[in-house]
């Protein structure tokens, strides 16, 4: 689950994962128009593969951040 930060040209976008890591991913496998900053994407193996509703994405992000081992979690 990744938040689009900015277009990076040549069919690429920069995205941020739920731990705050920034990655550059390909849009080759994504259907429809290029995503805009602020949209949420499902990413696998360096490719954006699906779009996600913002409310659903933010709910999942919050859940993930609360898990043990996550960047924002309570476990070591």
């Amino acid at each position, binding site marked *: *689950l990744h938040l689009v930060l900015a277009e990076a040209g040549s069919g690429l976008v920069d995205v941020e994962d739920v*731990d705050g*890591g920034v*990655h550059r991913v*390909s849009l*080759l*496998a994504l259907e429809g128009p290029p995503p805009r900053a602020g949209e949420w994407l*499902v990413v*696998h*193996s*360096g*490719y954006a*593969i*699906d*779009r*996600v*509703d913002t409310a*659903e*994405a933010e709910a*999942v992000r919050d859940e*993930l951040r609360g*898990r*043990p*081992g*996550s*960047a924002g979690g309570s*476990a*070591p």
Partner: protein
Amino acid sequence: VIGAGRVGPDESGGLLFARYAYPPNALGYCGPDRPDTLLQAASHGEANREVRSLVPRFEGASVYLRLIAACNGIADPLDRRVVEAYWVGNSLLRGVPSGRLPQHATGAVGAAPGGEAVAPIAISRGVAHHTFHVFAVYPWLARLRSGKTEPALEVLDRCRIRWGAVQDIAGDMVTVRSRKLVFDGANLGLGPDRLERVRREPGGLGSGADLRPGDMITMHWDWMCDRLPRLSLHYLRSCTQRNLDAVNGAGARASPERPMSARPYDGAATSWTSSRSAAGRSS
């Protein structure tokens, strides 16, 4: 004992996990941004506690590790037998009813909403192995079937755990004979042998130590993960074929490699020795 021989029995599960999780992690594809931790663990048998703390952040893998452990009455999802079952396959998978897959696969996808539903036939016939997640949970096969070959087929091929026979070693690069994943317009399968080059751990450490032509190894993305004893090769081939059958809708097809003996855990990990093939073929 694996690799460099510095791994105690309590730690070997984490180190085995590191060997298989490192390649996509180093490429930035999954898990937290900690490839150095994983590589240190895989190569030197260090920092298992750190590896343990990272595993929950591998969203897909951790779901299956918990499932396999729970279904077999094993308290620790990072028990070596459990880790081996997920990445390579072993008889613990027989203890996981296929009916448990939907719930847990959905749980994994639930971390990535928007994913397409796993086909019921795949759920009913699949096995809780890494290839199930690759072939059935991610939408790459659906992309293939809709005519979008690129990059779906390559991702499926490199994301699965492949096996192959070492042909040549040059520094940290290993030439391997393996079978490529193919798609015929409807179904996935294993094609003819091809040669590919993968990297091993720098300096020939860990699983890459004392590697010789004819050794059977596992690969993940562009990386050699481990050597493969004969029994583990059987399981990896069987689990791969079973999940291919599942997503192809041909799970009832007879196969000489049909997996999962009725025995309890058969100790594949304890025979973690080199299995050299004189013919050097991949299968």
